[in-house]
């Protein structure tokens, strides 16, 4: 028995591979649920209803999906160019804290239509800058950016902690370490009344479409893909490798920073050190589930968010730890890797 590379990658297989991967992950996680002594099918049904069963649940799922779309895009654009940005978590936090700092300052006196875009840009810029450090280390010293971007996550969270317990601390928060709230005028308008869903979702979806157009239609997209697939081939064709990677890193870090900015302006209004339940890391899973396709990222983010939101209710009803959602989602990353492999290879006897 051996593995043989397929000459063609059947489109059908590529399209169903995420479904197969998710099904396999659910099946494996089902064993854990059964081990915990709960009815498996009921548990999954409760996750579905918990995520989409009511208007409130559905808006909550999409609220949760919003930052995931952006961090998923951050990972997807970077991975496609073989820039291993695992630092989206840190970039999310610096984006968030930058918005909190500026949104609570005198800058908030800017007129509304100017204020929100300015804060978006500031958050994105902060994320960019944080990603440029690992990339610079890679280009200058050939240090693997995986480890450096990962380590920077811890630095970034500590930096945020330093600020929310220091200069940015909200004196009205009864001693809790949280930042000053951003001005009310910096808060994002709601998409649906009486819910937490805000226009950030529209921004995230627009970002996905823009990234898709960038990748499929522009010279930048073509060059990025070339640089990712074959650095030697791209260099021979005159693609400026360093510059292309810098652009990719900016785009990726910027998207993650924007995610942090939007989360602050759309949901909380202030920053704490538990603002993100691992959005940066989940973004990697989202990107892989989407096979790095920007539009697929939207669906993958909604799936991931649904797991997290749905698992909350299911957990309360059946007494299964909510971490089952993390297990399912991370398992789908592994099963997706295998599924993608078999779109490229087949088993021959």
């Amino acid at each position: 028995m051996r593995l043989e590379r397929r000459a063609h990658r059947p489109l059908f297989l590529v399209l169903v591979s995420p479904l197969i991967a998710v099904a396999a992950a659910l099946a494996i996680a089902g064993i854990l649920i059964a081990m915990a002594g709960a009815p498996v099918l009921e548990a999954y049904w409760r996750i579905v209803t918990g995520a989409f069963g009511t208007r409130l649940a559905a808006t909550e799922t999409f609220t949760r999906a919003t930052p995931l779309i952006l961090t998923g895009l951050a990972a997807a654009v970077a991975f496609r160019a073989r820039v291993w940005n695992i630092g989206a978590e840190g970039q999310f936090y610096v984006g968030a804290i930058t918005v909190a700092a500026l949104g609570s300052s005198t800058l908030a006196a800017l007129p509304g239509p100017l204020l929100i875009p300015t804060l978006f840009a500031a958050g994105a810029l902060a994320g960019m800058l944080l990603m440029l450090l690992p990339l610079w280390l890679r280009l200058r010293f050939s240090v693997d950016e995986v480890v450096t971007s990962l380590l920077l996550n811890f630095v970034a969270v500590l930096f945020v902690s330093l600020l929310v317990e220091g200069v940015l601390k909200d004196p009205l928060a009864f001693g809790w370490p949280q930042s000053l709230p951003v001005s009310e005028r910096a808060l994002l308008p709601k998409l649906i009344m009486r819910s937490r869903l805000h226009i950030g979702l529209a921004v995230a979806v627009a970002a996905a479409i823009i990234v898709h157009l960038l990748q499929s239609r522009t010279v930048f997209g073509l060059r990025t893909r070339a640089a990712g697939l074959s650095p030697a081939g791209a260099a021979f064709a005159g693609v400026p490798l360093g510059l292309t990677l810098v652009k990719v890193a900016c785009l990726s870090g910027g998207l993650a920073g924007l995610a942090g900015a939007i989360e602050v302006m759309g949901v909380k209004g202030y920053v704490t050190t538990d603002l993100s339940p691992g959005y940066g890391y989940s973004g990697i899973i989202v990107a892989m589930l989407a096979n790095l396709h920007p539009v697929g990222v939207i669906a993958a983010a909604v799936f991931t968010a649904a797991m997290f939101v749905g698992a909350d209710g299911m957990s309360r009803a059946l007494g299964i730890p909510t971490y089952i959602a993390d297990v399912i989602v991370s398992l789908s990353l592994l099963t997706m890797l295998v599924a993608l492999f078999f779109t490229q290879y087949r088993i021959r006897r």
Partner: protein
Amino acid sequence: MMALFDILASAGLWAAVLRIATPLIFGTLGAVLCERSGVLNLGIEGIMTFGAMVGWLTVYNGADLWTGMLVAALAGAVFGLMHALLSVTLGLSQHVTGLGITLFASSLSYFLFRLNVPLASTPPTIVPFKPVSIPGLSDLPFFGQAIFTQTMPTYLAILTAIVMSYVIFRMPLGLAIRMTGENPHAAEAQGINPVRIRYSAIMAGSALMGMGGAFLTLSAFNSFFPTMVQGRGWICIALVVFASWRPGRALLGALLFAFFDAFQLRLQPVLGDRVPYQIFLMIPYILSIAALALVARRAKVPQALMQAYRRGER
């Protein structure tokens, strides 16, 4: 100035260095073993987390401490097997495979922990390893307290470094591992099965990572809580480069690193009113990044690191 000297002269500092270094020694040695065979194992952070959880849980359920260590090692090996299936047999990206294992292993740890130990305001504890005094040596002034009052796993970690150094540089097995990491095709041409070597190296290396995690809950602390590994795995990956893939230097690197960490812990109370504690906590991560930048250019990376090996494909 006096304060600095007092810190350096206290036996407590040096005892802490060894304690802080132990999980890093295990983890770095595990990563060295994997990378010597040509596989980057980014599953380390999750495997350490799982080791910490499962080791603790085993002891919590009544088994003795060494059984806890053993279970953690076995669990590590199982995740190693999973990594090898994906990265060796299927030849998938080692980056993505490792991150996937980390995410999966950590969430599974949290799930299993919460399943067995319901939420409580104070986490339940176990009785951890006790310091072992070595007759004669422990009575030495200063050194006795500083070095020879560790728990058994710490001595085991140091012993492992020496043994691994011997295996890699003195045994035929070590040569086979090095050759596989440098050029798996050459290894195969000499009758060595690179796939089997990589599987074994990843599984053994991951077992060490699991033990490093278990040290945290069975010796350094006495309870488990999520996110307790705190990026130690990533620091180990950086230490591997710093140690240029040599077990002896991995030991030294971990000790050096632990020294800075122990030192800053003791510096905190002294400078605490002037410098926020977060700055101190950042130091290990920044130090790791700086170390990487410092040595990466000169590093003698195993030539086949991160390259999938498929028979008959060049």
